[in-house]
């Protein structure tokens, strides 16, 4: 672990640009607009200059790991929780207990506690699926309401999901099934679902974008992504599966050895405030925010009305369990004929 002293001396070294006003290098793994308003919002609130880089969660993790010996980023904000947990496991991120914790939902704090305070929840979103209502009608299909519906023979070739090997969303799906139906039942479900899948996409949100464009009937994704399609004007209907479902906790971590540690902590506290979390409303982010006082979007899926399973992030976020499940999925499910 790099000491803060080294971070400070690095700051002094890279002087010139870094003056007393302070600056912050933000790695943002949410959508572009949300990242923008977070960066500008923090600048307005504190006067600290923010250099924001937006990448997907996987890319950010890859970068933080590659930069391990000489970190360039200060805070990693947003993106699904698993890479944050993995970074915590590998000591890539810094433990920090924010004074803002009192204002948060219990699930956000549980996320922090499971990672030795190296990360914290900032929003959550439930897994589900969405379908293209035009295509559903054109193909004369019944409206799917449950996970089980997707395995019916008439949905053959109509369902799309991401490949769990490349996408955190799809891994959450796999882990959800295993937790909901037990390991054998979960894999049995994945096998039956496999028969109906038309494509395993690489990226997690690709299935619902394909559904929006009419390239598949059903896409298995996080519900807030499906809602965003509807709001963007595509004929997509979002479904909360009747059996219950898993969820993700979008997280935030401070990068170990951050050059601007003080500013990083300032951002961390600010990002957990209701004021900062309300910015999500303006940019079509339909997740549920972690601050109890944050406002809710009228379009956001109502988490209290959805049957959420007791998702074990610590177990299913660990790299050993992940590797085991993915290897099993690779050998038992993906090789079956369709």
């Amino acid at each position, binding site marked *: 672990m790099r000491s803060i002293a080294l971070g400070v001396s*690095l700051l*002094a*070294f*890279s*002087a*010139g*640009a870094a003056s007393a006003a302070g600056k912050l*290098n*933000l790695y943002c793994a949410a*959508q*572009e*607009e949300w990242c923008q308003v977070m960066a500008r919002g923090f600048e307005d609130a504190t006067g600290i200059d*923010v*250099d*924001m*880089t*937006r*990448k*997907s969660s*996987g*890319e950010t*993790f*890859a*970068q933080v*790991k*590659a*930069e391990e*010996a*000489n970190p*360039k980023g200060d805070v990693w904000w947003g993106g699904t929780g*698993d890479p944050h947990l*993995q970074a915590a496991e590998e000591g890539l991120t810094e433990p920090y207990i924010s004074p803002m914790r009192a204002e948060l939902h219990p699930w956000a704090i549980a996320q922090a506690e499971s990672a030795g305070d190296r990360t914290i929840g900032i929003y959550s979103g439930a897994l589900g699926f969405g379908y293209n209502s035009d*295509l559903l009608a054109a193909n004369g299909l019944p409206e799917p309401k449950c996970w089980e519906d997707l395995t019916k023979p008439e949905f053959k*070739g109509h369902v799309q999901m991401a*490949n*769990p*090997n*490349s*996408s955190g969303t*799809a*891994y959450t799906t796999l882990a959800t099934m295993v937790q909901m139906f037990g390991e054998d039942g979960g894999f049995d479900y994945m096998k039956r679902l496999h028969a109906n899948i*038309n*494509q*395993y996409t*690489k*990226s997690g949100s690709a299935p619902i974008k394909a559904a*929006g*464009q*009419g*390239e*598949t009937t059903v896409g298995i994704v996080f519900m807030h992504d499906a809602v*965003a399609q509807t709001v*963007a*004007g*595509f*004929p997509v209907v979002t479904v909360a599966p009747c059996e219950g479902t898993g969820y993700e906790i979008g997280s935030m971590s401070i990068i170990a050895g951050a050059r601007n540690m003080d500013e990083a902590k300032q951002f961390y506290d600010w990002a957990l405030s209701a004021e900062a979390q309300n910015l999500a409303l303006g940019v079509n982010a339909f997740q549920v925010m972690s601050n109890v006082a944050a406002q809710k979007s009228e379009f956001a899926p109502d988490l209290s009305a959805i049957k959420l399973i007791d998702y074990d992030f610590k177990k299913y976020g660990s790299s050993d369990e*992940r*590797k085991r499940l*993915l290897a099993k999925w*690779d050998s038992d499910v993906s090789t079956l004929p369709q």
Partner: protein
Amino acid sequence: MRAVTTEKTTHPVLIFWIVTGWVGFALLPWYGVEDFWFLDWLTEGWPTDSDYAPAAFLLGQGEKPWLWPLAPALLAPLALLRRRKTDPAYAYVLLAAGGFGFAWLIAQGLGIGIRGWTADWLSALFGPLEDRQYGMGYGALVVASALLFLFTQGIAARGAINGDVFVTGAIGGVIAVVTIFVFFPIAKMLGAAFITEEGGYSIPLFFAKFFDDHIWGLGCLSGTRCGVAWNSLFLAVLVGVLTTLLGLVFALVLTRSGFRFKRELRAITVLPIITPPFVIGLAIILLFGLSGAVTTWVADLIGVRPTRWVYGLPGILIAQLLAFTPIAFLVLIGVVEGVSPSMEEAAQTLRATRWQTFRTVSLPLMRPGLANAFLLGFIESMADFGNPLVLGGNYDVLSTEIFFAIVGAQYDQGRAAILSMVLLGFTLAAFYLQRFWLGKKSYTTVTGKGDSGVHPQMPRGLAIPVYTIAALWGGFTLIIYGMILYGSVVQLWGVDNTLTFKHYLTAFAVRIEDGGIRWIGSAWDSFWTTIMISTVAAPLTAAVGLITAYLLTRQDFAGKRSFEFGTMLSFAIPGTVIGVSYILAFNVPPIEITGTGLILVISFIFRNMPVGVRAGIASMSQLDRSLDESSLTLGANSWQTFRRVILPLLRPAILAALVYSFVRAMTAISAVIFLVSARYDMATSYIIGRVENNDYGLAIAYSTALIFVMLAAVGLLQLLVGRTQIGRRLAHEQGGS
């Protein structure tokens, strides 16, 4: 020869590099300075502040003692100032001083990092080190170049390459930069293939991973799926062959037919090369996807359910043909034009029919072009990432697998490294096959001797299919671009077709206030960065590429083969691997440039240089060596020959290299994703962010704007570089190369 002439005064090149070395050592800040070109450091404590101090001042203040050995290396050449080049001491001193200094500079850079010694055995050997150092800056860079070129002058003085200072310097320089910016990062990355999860090294693990069924499985022969390696290979061969054929078709129409609208045709064929990634893929989905216009129309017509036929091999193939045919065309047009009509006329005089002439004279003379075009198509297809991502369906290829091995839910650098090795293996195999096919024959036709006449028209039997294919493909390209243009002016592509300009306004709005322009559109930041980076990268890429091509075709030196291989290497590796390997290699001292614009420029230079090399080689193998020889005999040195004789004849190749590197810098994505930073965001990574956010309209509008900017830039380059008339042909106007 020049080197043997006795000169009373010292060679000016020697003086230049000695002075440069001392400027770097005693005046410029030794370590990296943020925003160097703002020159703030001049007023903020230079030359004594240890952040900004030149090496000489650091040593004077008793800091960084490991820099001391550089002083004698820079002092020794001063003793040569009055010596003759023929003096044996001249060569030995330069070799010893330059070689030792350069080696020491590298050794100390690698050995001492931000946490003192970088390896345990060093601290075991020398005891703990309390001090540390950061990334090298301009001072170190300048000293390193000076030492390197002093060394190459030493080699020249020993009589290598006829004592030619320019050629030895160029070889040394290219080897040094290729080693630093290609071999070093790639070696770092590929090393990961042998690293176990516990951090140790394991050879059996490597073999277990290498012969994995996911890579080499042959399931598709028995109904399931084949390994990614076979998928990639099959696709790349198909794309290589078809792009070469299509490229040849367009090159023939432009040079050997009476076709009237050559300019327009040329513009159409070049359009795809200037199209940002994902856009062609989106247009193909809107045409051929499940709900695509063509698919639904055909399905209605023959009364079947629309299918997802385009996802997989067909989709990737169509998109890659659209994208890479222009590259084959750019390579082939130079070669087809360069075939001297004298040969063809000679054949016709000997009563050969037009068809016989074409088949036995013109076509064989185009071999270098065909081979290079195939090679480029093959490699591009192997490394392409955007199209398989959008259209791949369940047809997995190496490049996307590599990307998701790194950024996917399983962070598996080892797997990425192994897949990269497979990809690299295929590319190298193609490279050697190409060399084998070309053999040792001569393809020289432009000789400087009497060369006149015009190219004969194509034989009729060939002209008809050529015209048909050109017309069909040209029309198809136009439809695709029509769709793209249309997509940028509708509310929501594919859903709400109301016309609107709002996407352009969001991206490119400006406001005039206080007599100045405020760029309020959301795209301006990344737009200006992209323009700036591309403008810096393009001429550098072309220069490095053409000098390399010159060395490869015109000079003989030991290790030429491996030298050529090195220059092709970075092109063969997918951008994703380059991106990650650059972060691994250049985020820590001695070269610490991540997060700067410089790393983008450098990655573009070494990614795109091979095209300059290939275009240069193809053109230069047609220029007879007697041209150089006559220039040398008349007393010019090799630099003058290169500049006055070869360069003007290479204008088509220069243009191709400039255009290609500029355009690629504006449209590249896979390497860029890892290298962009907040201050240096590129257009493509911004566009991908928009696509991910369902903002298709904005993404397409931005892409369309970029297409027009690139068109303008290409036109401007054509004007600047000018056209070249190879030979003294007058009739049917050249396509404007």
